[in-house]
């Protein structure tokens, strides 16, 4: 079925995987293996003990009709002692195997976290969120899944070697017959896992599409309700759920067949051993005790053999998960665009830069400009013309394709339109790991007009997000603003950060920034005329030409498209009632 080279290749990969996993915590793993060895030796010893008890104690007692107390007590003591040691072996094996498994999971998580933290945003943008989360979650679990059964599997192999030797040395013919069933059973197990796993994999894939569909359907619940589509959506999801069900049922059918076969084969072997044993006992080559211990030994090995099959079948999943984590870990760390910035002068200067997400979609070419401290520049223009990309390039979350940027100082703060807040307290979200005094925090909240924070249950210590208080879009924007402001940045970049605020609050916030950060270069994407009115300079982004920075009135005169855009803002106004016209 599989050619030799691929089998040996698989074997090598398996060994490599196991070595890599064990290398994280070799000490813990070794202790577990020692426990496993103790368990194996005790198990084999218990079968020898059983033979001795049957031959020397039980049969003798019933033959001689004489009850020997000392012999009986010896038998009982040995039985109890041996199983006590065996139990200790099990405890050591399992607890340390678990410890090794979960500490390795922890180490793998740490490695993934290091990568996530070190890679700059341009790398993150190339990845899918779901993929990265799979690395840290499912893949870590899958990688270490193979570790727990490993010591047990090793002890089973050890048991098989000792017992196989014991069986064969006891009675060559019977021993060979019994041990020849082992490979058959392992083969049956592996075949079983592969055949059944195919269906479980299909089910898993369908489950993936089910959760994606469920997530989407719940996320769009407002639309579902708005069109009374609850039943339709339920039916749509039910179809996907039924595919999961069908794959599962197929897997179960196959599984039940194999399970029954795996029970039947060893039982039948036992029966054959009894027949064979009867001949051997008749010829005087075997005692009854030896035969019984023989069967006991064989029975003891049957269940563990199944676990070997299980561990072997887990291997590809572990391998895939571990491989994905390693690829993530080994992917080169991209350069942080900020490391290329020059630090000089008192102005923010861009020299013949080209920006865009990649060289095929250049949004702005050979652009140079200087932004003086204390000025407020508004970025105006149609969506998709590169306003946000320009800001992000200045902040270094997107690398410039060409050109240089020189900044007066280190502190550049960019606030996004949909700011990201962490599931911690308001103050943690503002400080972001740096230390600030409480009065500084309060000052930053005041600048951002975020007074609502004082009404939250625990004020600035209120936990926000999933485990805490939910905030509205405008509230989130204001906390993000406070986060930027508290650092007293030399350069403050606002990507439509006030869009969810009402115009009144928006004006207040901008006035506050003007007053409190009077030396900062402020550049903001503006989509409301009010903001444009406040700006010292305007940069107009247009698909064909890029104008500015220059003053609003100058632009109105210079640029036809700018005039057209400003008129488009006016138009809805003019359609207002006559009253508002009078006011204009």
């Amino acid at each position, binding site marked *: 079925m599989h050619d030799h080279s691929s089998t040996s290749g698989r074997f090598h990969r398996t060994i490599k995987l196991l070595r890599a996993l064990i290398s994280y915590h070799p000490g813990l793993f070794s202790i577990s293996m020692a426990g496993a060895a103790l368990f194996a030796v005790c198990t084999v010893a218990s079968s020898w003990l059983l033979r001795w008890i049957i031959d020397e104690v039980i049969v003798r007692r019933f033959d001689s009709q004489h009850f020997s107390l000392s012999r009986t007590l010896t038998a009982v003591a040995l039985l109890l002692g041996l199983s006590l040691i065996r139990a200790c072996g099990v405890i050591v094996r399992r607890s340390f195997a678990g410890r090794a498994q979960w500490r390795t999971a922890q180490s793998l998580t740490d490695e993934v976290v290091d990568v996530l933290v070190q890679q700059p945003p341009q790398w993150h943008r190339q990845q899918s969120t779901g993929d990265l989360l799979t690395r840290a979650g499912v893949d870590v679990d899958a990688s270490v899944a193979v570790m727990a059964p490993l010591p047990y599997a090793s002890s089973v192999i050890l048991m098989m070697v000792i017992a196989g030797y014991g069986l064969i040395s006891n009675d060559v013919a019977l021993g060979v017959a019994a041990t020849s069933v082992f490979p058959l059973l392992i083969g049956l197990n592996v075949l079983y896992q592969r055949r059944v796993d195919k269906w479980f994999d299909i089910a898993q894939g369908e489950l993936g599409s089910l959760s994606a569909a469920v997530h989407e359907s*719940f996320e769009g619940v407002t639309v579902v309700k708005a069109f009374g589509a609850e039943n339709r959506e339920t039916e749509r999801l039910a179809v996907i759920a039924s595919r999961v069900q069908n794959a599962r049922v197929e897997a179960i059918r196959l599984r039940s067949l194999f399970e029954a076969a795996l029970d*039947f084969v060893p039982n039948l072997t036992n029966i054959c051993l009894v027949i064979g044993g009867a001949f051997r006992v008749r010829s005087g080559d075997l005692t009854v005790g030896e035969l019984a211990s023989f069967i006991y030994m064989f029975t003891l090995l049957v269940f563990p053999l199944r676990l070997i099959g299980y561990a072997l079948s887990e291997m590809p999943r572990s391998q895939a998960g571990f491989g994905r984590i390693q690829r993530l870990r080994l992917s080169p760390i991209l350069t942080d665009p900020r490391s290329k910035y020059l630090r000089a002068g008192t102005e923010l200067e861009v020299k013949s830069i080209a920006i865009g997400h990649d060289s095929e979609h250049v949004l702005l070419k050979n652009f140079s400009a200087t932004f003086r401290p204390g000025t407020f520049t508004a970025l105006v223009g149609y969506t998709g013309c590169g306003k946000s990309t320009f800001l992000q390039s200045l902040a270094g979350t997107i690398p410039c394709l060409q050109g240089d940027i020189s900044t007066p100082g280190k502190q550049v703060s960019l606030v996004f339109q949909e700011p990201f807040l962490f599931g911690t307290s308001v103050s943690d979200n503002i400080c972001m790991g740096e230390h600030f005094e409480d009065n500084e925090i309060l000052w930053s909240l005041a600048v951002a007009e975020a007074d609502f924070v004082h009404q939250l249950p625990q004020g600035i210590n209120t936990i926000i997000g999933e485990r805490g208080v939910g905030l509205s879009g405008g509230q989130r924007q204001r906390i993000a603003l406070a986060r930027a402001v508290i650092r007293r940045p030399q350069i403050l970049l606002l990507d439509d950060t006030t869009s969810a605020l009402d115009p009144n609050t928006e004006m207040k916030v901008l006035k506050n920034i003007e007053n409190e950060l009077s030396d900062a270069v402020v550049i903001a994407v503006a989509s409301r005329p009010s903001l444009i009115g406040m700006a010292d300079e305007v940069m107009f982004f247009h698909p064909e030409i890029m104008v500015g920075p220059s003053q609003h009135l100058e632009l109105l005169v210079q640029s036809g498209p700018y005039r057209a855009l400003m008129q488009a803002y006016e138009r809805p106004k003019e359609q207002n009632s006559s009253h508002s016209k009078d006011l204009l």
Partner: protein
Amino acid sequence: MIESTNNGAIATLNRGVRAVPSLRQGIGFTVFLALIGASGRVVVPVVIQQAIDHGLHLTNNSAQQTVNVSLVIKVCVGAAIYLLIAAVAQRTAVSRLGQRSEAALFELRVQLFQHIHLLSLEDHNDEQRGSLVARVTSDVETLSQFFSWGGLAYLLDGALMVIVASVMLAYDWVLALIVIAISTPLIYVLRRVQSKLIAAYDATRSANSFVLGSTAELVTGAETLHAYSAGAIFGQRVKKSAKARGDAQTKATMIGALLFPSGEIFGAIAVSSVVFIGLWRGSGSGLTAGALVGFIFLTYRFLEPIAELTEVLDQTQTAISGMRRILGILAIPVGPEAPKYPIEVGSGPLDIEIENLSFAYRPRDGESEIDSHAVLQNVYCSIPFGTQVAIVGETGSGKTTLGRLLSRFSDPTVGQISIGGIPLNRIQNDELRKLLVVVPQEPFLFSDTVAANLRFALPRATQQQLVDAFSNVDLQDWFETLPMGLDTLVGQRGSQLSAGERQLIALVRASLINPSILILDEATSSVDASTEVRLTRALDKLSRGRTTISIAHRLSTAARADRVLVLDSGLLVQDGTHDELVTTPGLYCEMYKSWEMSRNSAD
């Protein structure tokens, strides 16, 4: 305490079976087959006993053993045949259990889909979405895992224990009772360990979800972390949580490691007792050497399933807590309930009547009734058919809530809303959704084509109807810019389109229904000028000939409306036309002034 957790588990199971009655269907025959299957496992010990006592014919003098090989062969052939029958029975039992449980879980999933879709919007906020999805996916999965491994073990091992106990009793009731007596305390010990294990696994799970949650923040917040160079600090936070998870898991494994050995030690005690008492009593009580040896094997077989059962205990715990969470969701009352005695809305004018309307959020866990303050209070208002109404007010004034109540996404705490004289809660949902369409603030688009998103409103709409819908609201020119026309893919949540374009699609989608009442929750996010123009134009077209209620965030919308309702802290404080209100001293006038100021400073 142990009792109570166990009762809790059984109660959960009972409630689960009541929620999905088909779980129990045909279980009797399955158990019967499992018993036959399990009886196959005692065949070997019985054969050994028979062979030793009769075939190998042990006499008083072991030197003169006579061996009756033909008898041994006869017994063995019979046993082999029985083994085959047992194997077939076992196979059938396993297959039946699997198929039935999967069918039942499918049913449970569909129930959950339906129920969750019907929950009110309060139960659907962003924070809870992840857990709702988890209920239908991973929690049902834990049940499926349970039925295909743990539940199976219970079935087969339970059957095995019954069979073995019966055979043991038949051989020698004294020894059998000793084995059973010794095994009983094992169950107590296992339960002790088990209850500790539950707590340990709960800790593991919550530690794990914290790790995953904080890792997700590293990914989704990557830009922010970079912007503030805070990656290392927040990374450390995740690592700390990963260590806490490791600690919790280590503790759980430690407790788990004690389970199997306790079975082992009880096994040793039981076998020792059997050996000691068997030997002490000797053949005087009718016991034979073969029976005693067979009994030793049976004792192991009796304890083996107990040990195996303990292995699946943790899985059982996971499954039961999964079931508990699922039942928890099913126990949340569904949102606005379907009317018991629906009334059809007549053909008369569909005036809207709001009477004494108050609304307060259901207190969340840990909050008293008093903490949940009223969002709306005693609102009265009547809106004649065809009016263009704008509801304005500051954030938190209750305007969004009023919109939700008008759309019947929630029911009021006090008072009622009626359309055409019929209370909203007496109108059949299907009818209501044809009468009244809501365009939400952030219109949600499915990751599919434009056509599929439009057909969400009207599944049977033809290609032509969809194209016409665009021109009906003056969006023909925009439609022509779509790269693939109706087949344009909109991306996840419509991410291929701008926020304004998503709103355009939402308007076209709403227009397909041709509702009498349109409720618009105006978007707060700003839209670029050209899309803004299109939106205004489309809205003008769409609102003609129907009642339109806009939850307005921009006063320009209010200025265009026939009538403006001003809300302040849940109270309806002003009601009139824009022109009236602008000249009357009050909240609206103030809002308008500051708005005008901000606008004019732009010019």
